[in-house]
């Protein structure tokens, strides 16, 4: 018995939609000029929710590697969500605080690449590689944006994250 392709695709669509909403909220609010807003807790809460969801997905994974990688994604997202929440509440003021989310994104991308074990002729394996590289590059762009504060890096960060969401939404099964 294994989880059907349709169920897997539904789970990916759900995460894709959640992620896209998170990206739009995060990048959109950062691009707003001349307005002062209360810090949004949407991003950390979505990260925490996604982390719990990843652990839930690990239970229903078909293979051992799927279970382990989904649990590791869950760990990274839960840790990033907790730290980001503390940062937005003003409890975490360390210089590395703003780097937490971009680094978590890059680590998740690395796990995607480790997860894709099939031949590249397989569409699902190819999609995993694309998603992995999208996240790794998004993480790098995010780190560059935090360090340099140039809008070009922010656009690259947001575009790559949106691309990742699109790849999740169109995951072939």
């Amino acid at each position, binding site marked *: *018995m294994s989880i059907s392709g349709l169920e897997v695709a539904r789970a990916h669509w759900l995460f894709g939609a959640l992620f896209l909403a998170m990206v739009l909220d995060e990048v959109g609010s950062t691009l707003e000029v001349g307005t002062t807003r209360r810090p949004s807790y949407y991003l950390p809460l979505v990260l*925490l929710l996604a982390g719990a969801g990843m*652990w*839930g997905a690990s*239970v*229903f994974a*078909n293979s*051992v*590697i799927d279970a382990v990688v989904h649990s590791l994604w869950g760990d990274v997202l839960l840790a990033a969500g*907790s730290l980001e929440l503390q940062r937005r509440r003003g409890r975490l003021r360390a210089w590395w605080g703003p780097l937490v989310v971009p680094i978590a994104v890059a680590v998740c991308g690395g796990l995607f690449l480790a997860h894709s074990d099939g031949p590249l002729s397989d569409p699902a394996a190819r999609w995993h590689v694309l998603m992995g590289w999208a996240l790794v590059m998004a993480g790098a762009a995010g780190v560059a944006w935090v360090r340099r504060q140039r809008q070009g890096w922010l656009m690259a960060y947001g575009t790559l994250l949106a691309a990742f969401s699109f790849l999740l939404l169109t995951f072939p099964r």
Partner: protein
Amino acid sequence: MSRVGSPVRAVRGTVARTLFVAGMAIVGMAWLAPAAWAHASLDHAVPGPEEELRAPPTLLLLFFDEPVSLPFSQVTVTANASGGGPNLVAGPLRSVGISGIEVFVPLRPGPTGSYTVRWRVLSPADGHVAQGAFTYGVGVPAQPPAVLPGGAPPIGDDVMRWLIFLGLALAGGSLAFRALVWRPALRAAAVEAGDGGNGADAAVDWNREADWPWFTGAALVGAVVALHAELYAFLASAHAVTGGSLAQFAGAQVQPLRTETRFGSSWTWTTFVWLAVIGLVLTGWLGSPRRREPLLAAAAAAALAAGLGMSTSGHAAAGSAVQMGVDFLHLTAAALWTGGLVALAVLAASPSGRDRHAARRRAVFAASLARFSSLALGLVVALIAAGVYLALVEGRWPATLHRAWGAALVAKAVLAAGAVALGAYHHWRVVPRLRLQAAGPAPGLGRVGRSLAAEATLAAGALLAAAVLTNLAPRA
């Protein structure tokens, strides 16, 4: 006129009570021995071990002492000569009775010689894999089975089970300690100090740190540790069924094991329970103080309920629902005891001379120790009583002690007895002494903290021995 006994007599009385309690604990723990009888083991076989046959058999019958799960069981029959030769098993394993303990193995006839039967079966009740080998001869006497390379001890599974125990104790035990012992002690100390009659709210006012973040931190650590240990314990059990190298195992399909075994289904729901515990603790931690207590109490209840996962997939699962309930009681009492000890040890370490609230913290500690000491007495009684019940129901006396199993059992009994002895010392010596000192100057709690830490360490060691015991078959 009140009579005050001499200090020497008081010490003798304490020593006698401590030794008595330790002795009773050893007897109680020894009674726990048969609780580990539930590994499926080969009762007998046809042809049997070392039997010499005139003609090659066309079937092999294996009789186990409890039902086995055929889809996850393997049997091979190979020639005992060098090289082994092909597997003579001619078809899938079948159960020939309704009880599930008899396994029918069709065989191809082989030439004259000695043959090795290797069996590896999964017990669907407790999720343990048992394996063994024996030989029979065809036209010649049976030779001893050839030794297979590898076969590492299941240390990974033991460690994971221990981490689950510790997670239960840290998350469930410490949060229950907070609700049942620490908060009432805090309230009592606040009222005594004249901080007003508003109970806990007033107490929190006089000491901001009173809403001690250690409890939420410990509960989060415990829940996260248990969440991971549950996953890797499941994977260790799955590997015991599938075998193979790490690379082969990475691609192994584990869904059938998750859905068709008790240890798989218990992993499924305990994962969501631990996620709920993490969510409740985080919400309680971040939310308003008014909502904190119900959320943390719910987290404590959920964490303790996660122990049902072990009771419904461990040895007790091979028995009745009552046995599972008593096993759950046993586990819950151990978690409450150990978690409370850890919390007390940390609480004793927190007061210092530089702390302006040191005197009040000390009063809260003394009240907490007194409350917990009474509670722990009941917990230890429940622990031993549950163990005795399980032993009487599941036991097969006199037990034949497996060497490793016997060593683990003795280690568990000694460690638990040591912890109980220290508990008796705290109950009969430390609590009265702290009461007497309440009116005078407040000395440090370093010595009490160390003895509490020693008791917690011994209890954690006993849990480790219990984790090892659950994975060992008591018979050779």
